[in-house]
């Protein structure tokens, strides 16, 4: 009986991990429309709004008084999966997602500044139709991790600025998946025998599982440095620490009627007449049983990342920027998830790779009123070939940005950006492996993925 819950645990744990990666892969680096328009390049030259709290905490100096910046990025992702065997194509059904950002900064003098920012570095979801075979790995998943970051910047030398932020991360997650009776252990059968070996077809959904958890918190730090040897060249770097979030939530189960009536004298009920499969399943939902509603918990580590960059000003109006970003995704090599009705937590290997990204941007201040920006970025995939799933149909990506900044008044400015995410097609799987299965053998189709992002930020400097 325990196998039932272990299978659920595995699938849910995987879902959490994958969603967090999705956030990174979908470019939730977009926490300010100005720097977004430069393809996220700006660690060496943050924009003159308050988004430096995120892009480089050292970048708040050289300002006096208040700066308020708020905005959002709207993410419209689209994609599909084409099954190798049937040729059936399932399309992602994501609605556009809005990701907010808010920053407040105050410059005390030329040397000291402080601020606080709120941004959502991990916060995308995936929604697949219930007709998609991958629904057993997750069909409707959301993960949001809000970072609140009080920040202090100081300029100890005219050419050097330092910044420090304390990150308080608050996470919540909702994962929905269908369960496949095919995977389930058969009561009374020899160990290791699953219902599929008795002929139950794969994709026989018999249960809807929903995991919700909120209020997970963690603490991290964010440090940055800026070095400006000349007026034309600046160098910058920042490092944000990893943050581990402990999620406590509830797993809820709802029976899905299969309508299957097992023929008489079948191996699940030898010597008996026709047996409704749903009656067997109902018995598994009794209190204390594997599919009774029950508490569940897990921990997820948001990876640390390091960014270094350079900014060059060939002319006072033109800035060229280049950033290199490294994200320590290997901290998420294994996920453990516990259910109350299972004694041993389930551990699932993820084997993610660290990722590298290059961001190149250009910022042209055409007039005192108008600025134009553009950029291109590329980054490597975090997931290895064996963990390309409905929850993270990820691959190497190239992205392009275009943006405009306009100063409406002396105090009020706006930035508007469009970003296109182009992902390479990649083979992947639709389900989680059973014990003894090599996950890479389960890759049974091709994921295609892309996205449109629209960013807006408004800044007020009273």
């Amino acid at each position, binding site marked *: 009986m325990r196998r039932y819950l272990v299978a659920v645990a595995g699938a849910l744990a995987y879902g959490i991990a994958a969603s967090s990666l999705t956030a990174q892969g979908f470019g939730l680096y977009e926490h300010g429309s100005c720097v977004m328009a430069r393809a996220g390049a700006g660690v060496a030259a943050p924009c003159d709004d308050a988004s430096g709290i995120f892009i480089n905490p050292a970048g708040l100096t050289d300002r006096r008084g208040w700066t308020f910046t708020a905005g959002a990025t709207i993410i419209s992702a689209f994609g599909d999966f084409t099954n190798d065997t049937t040729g059936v194509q399932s399309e992602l059904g994501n609605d556009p997602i809005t990701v907010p950002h808010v920053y407040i900064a105050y410059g005390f003098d030329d040397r000291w500044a402080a601020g606080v920012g709120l941004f959502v570095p991990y916060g995308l979801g995936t929604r697949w139709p219930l007709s998609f075979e991958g629904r057993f790995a997750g069909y409707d998943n959301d993960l949001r991790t809000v970072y609140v970051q009080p920040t202090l910047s100081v300029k100890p030398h005219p050419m050097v600025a330092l910044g420090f932020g304390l990150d308080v991360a608050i996470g919540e997650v909702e994962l929905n998946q269908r369960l496949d009776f095919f995977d389930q252990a058969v009561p009374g059968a020899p160990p290791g025998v699953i219902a599929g070996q008795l002929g139950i077809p*794969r994709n026989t959904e018999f249960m809807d599982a929903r995991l919700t958890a909120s209020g997970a918190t963690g603490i991290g730090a964010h440090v940055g440095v800026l070095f400006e040897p000349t007026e034309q060249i600046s160098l910058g770097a920042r490092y944000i620490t990893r943050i581990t979030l402990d999620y406590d939530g509830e797993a809820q189960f709802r029976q899905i009627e299969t309508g299957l009536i097992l023929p008489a004298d079948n191996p699940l009920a030898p010597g008996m007449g026709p047996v409704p499969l749903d009656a067997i399943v109902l018995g598994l939902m009794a209190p204390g049983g594997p599919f009774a509603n029950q508490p569940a918990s897990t921990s997820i580590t948001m990876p640390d990342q390091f960014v270094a960059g350079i900014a060059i000003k060939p002319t006072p109006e033109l800035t060229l920027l280049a950033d290199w970003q490294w994200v320590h995704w290997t901290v998420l090599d294994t996920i453990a998830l516990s259910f109350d009705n299972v004694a041993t937590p389930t551990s699932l290997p993820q084997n993610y790779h660290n990722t590298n990204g*290059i961001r190149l941007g250009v910022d042209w201040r055409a007039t005192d009123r108008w600025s134009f920006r553009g950029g291109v970025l590329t980054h490597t995939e975090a997931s290895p070939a064996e963990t390309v799933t409905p929850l993270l149909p990820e691959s190497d990506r190239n992205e392009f940005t275009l943006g405009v900044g306009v100063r409406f008044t002396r105090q009020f400015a706006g930035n508007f950006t469009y970003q296109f995410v182009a992902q390479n097609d990649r083979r992947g799987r639709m389900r989680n492996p059973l014990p003894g299965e090599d996950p890479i053998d389960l890759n049974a189709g091709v994921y295609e993925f892309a996205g449109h992002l629209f960013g807006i930020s408004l800044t007020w400097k009273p």
Partner: protein
Amino acid sequence: MRTRVGRRGASLALLTAIALLTACESAPLIPPLGRPIPSGGALFQRYLAMGNSITAGFQSLGINDSTQLESYAVLLAQQFGLTVGLDFNVPLMNQPGCPPPLVNIFTQTRLAGGGTADCALRKRPISPVIHNVSVPGAAVIDVLSHFDPASSPNPLTTLLLGGQSQLEAAAAAQPTFVTLWVGFNDVLGALTTALTAPELAGDPSFITDPADFATRFSSVMAGLDAMPSIQGGALIGAVQVVAAPFVSTGLAYFVAAQSIPTLTVLANCLDTAPIPGGGPNDTAVVFVPFPFGAAKLDSAVAGVPVTLDCSVPEVITVAESINMILAVAQYNGVMALEAAARGWVFVDPNDLLGPFIGDPAFIRPFPAFPPDPAAETEPFGSLLSRDGFHPSGLAHRFVADALITAINAAYGTSVPNL
């Protein structure tokens, strides 16, 4: 001045890098990596086989992954350019089988010493999509539903397809090309009852009424018509079950009695009658099922005087054999019409196997009995497995080749023969 030049150089490098990255992105993305078009052509991209024990690969009253992979359906798929386990998935059974096949019909020994109730279950990994959805024991009604009062599900019905009907499993595979071989089991029960209730041999209640068969078969075809992915198909007619060496003619026993003094075969074993609607040489005869006849022969060879009286219920009379022959002929007429209506291929296996009937090398007129070594290896001939009515691997090759020839002729394809 040097500083200014350096700055320009760095700026140029950055701009060049941006341009290069942009150019790189303008190249097409990696194309989809789905399964390639098979060598036989796009028509066969998702080939699906439906049917009964023959198509499932049942041999010698058993089934395992070895016998399954000898099925003509697997051979066809391979000739189409498909790969078993990748784009042609068979619900393989673990060794020794479910049940293990007979290795000796006379001793009733099965593979690995197994019994009739033994089942080694499905072999893993199990594909989500099955391309050979055939189920041993399936009559035409079983292709439609397992739960019709006329259906006859068995443990293999569950093991291979769970609660699905063949049509449901077929729809999941989104087939582009289908072969369907049913009809055998709509008559065979009248023969195989000799294994369990010998006195009912030839009983017409085991035979599906041809009108019912026509209705049910039309429903099956309507179900296939509702699958828009299907671009073509082939129907294989029912085999005349009385041609299976599981039964031998009364004449064959009469001839055998010439060399066995203790065996007496009565004249009623030589009864004949013309087959209504048949040609001048189409004659129905008396058939003696193997279990009944073998027991008689065994006693006679042991020196016990035995008389074979073909008026007993264990023997299939001329009238009963005519009933079976006409039923199969009508089934095949229905199937030929359904195939023609869709431009599908129709292959009559009786035309294919007819030349081999009575040839001891292929389909023996009389089983090989011990101590003949063939009694263990090929008691009914090389085209039959050890149960006398399921085809051997060699017969599957013949069927596959005949189908390939017919399919190429009908669809203009160039699928290589075996």
